[in-house]
């Protein structure tokens, strides 16, 4: 009792509606719905949820890629025992982001080499991206170099404005800027 539809046309319509996940996966859901006799409303709701979940996943993947965080530097791999003066609870509060990033407040990690500042900064960045904040991690010297190029091209203001899309800019290694 297949009620045929024009699948090609449906694909085009879903494309126009910008529903790529539904476009790609509706046949599987439809088959399952038919097999399990889902009510029509359940089928529709399942498709909508699928699109939203995929949209979240794509956004997270995009924001993770643009953040340029250091691979493997997570909070789980950070050894809090080595730095007893850093309270894990405080770091976790920072990782929520709510109390400071929306106010444009800053975070400063100071200490000699090898204390794990860079690891901690990148890990906090990762946690914040997972909480949907937009983050950019950069070596301070690299970023300054980029801004210097922009200034030479009389585009410093535009370059700084482009960084505005990031809720948090992580500048690693201030000391190495000359």
């Amino acid at each position: 009792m297949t009620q045929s539809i024009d699948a090609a046309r449906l694909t085009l319509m879903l494309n126009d509606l910008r529903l790529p996940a539904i476009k790609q996966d509706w046949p599987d859901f439809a088959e399952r719905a038919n097999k399990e006799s889902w009510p029509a409303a359940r089928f529709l709701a399942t498709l909508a949820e699928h699109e939203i979940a995929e949209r979240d996943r794509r956004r997270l993947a995009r924001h993770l890629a643009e953040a340029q965080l250091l691979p493997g530097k997570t909070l789980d791999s950070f050894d809090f025992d080595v730095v007893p003066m850093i309270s894990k609870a405080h770091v976790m509060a920072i990782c929520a982001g709510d109390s400071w990033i929306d106010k444009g407040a800053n975070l400063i990690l100071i200490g000699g080499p090898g204390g794990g500042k860079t690891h901690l900064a990148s890990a906090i960045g990762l946690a914040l991206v997972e909480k949907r904040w937009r983050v950019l991690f950069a070596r301070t010297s690299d970023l300054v170099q980029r801004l210097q190029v922009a200034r030479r091209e009389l585009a410093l203001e535009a370059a700084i404005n482009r960084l505005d899309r990031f809720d948090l800019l992580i500048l690693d290694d201030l000391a190495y800027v000359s």
Partner: protein
Amino acid sequence: MLFELISARYERRSIAITANQPFGAWGKVFPDPAMTLAAVDRLVHHATIFEINVDSYRRRAALDRKHKAAGRPQAYATIKDLPAVSLPDNQTEN
């Protein structure tokens, strides 16, 4: 350059900075003392500051390996095992 960036983001967008040196040594980073002062001022005005003054964990790991290799027991205390003295990490300046 950094100064322009810090000024542009001040009280609007967050910055996180890692630095090997305390604020007093940041003079090298900015063109002149007045700019250094203004930049540090803006950075710390609303900031959480973590001070990580610990023996380099790489050195510590190397020491641990050495001690283990020598077959020494873990349970002994030296002055280096005492918690480092530092400002509390939860100070927030507002």
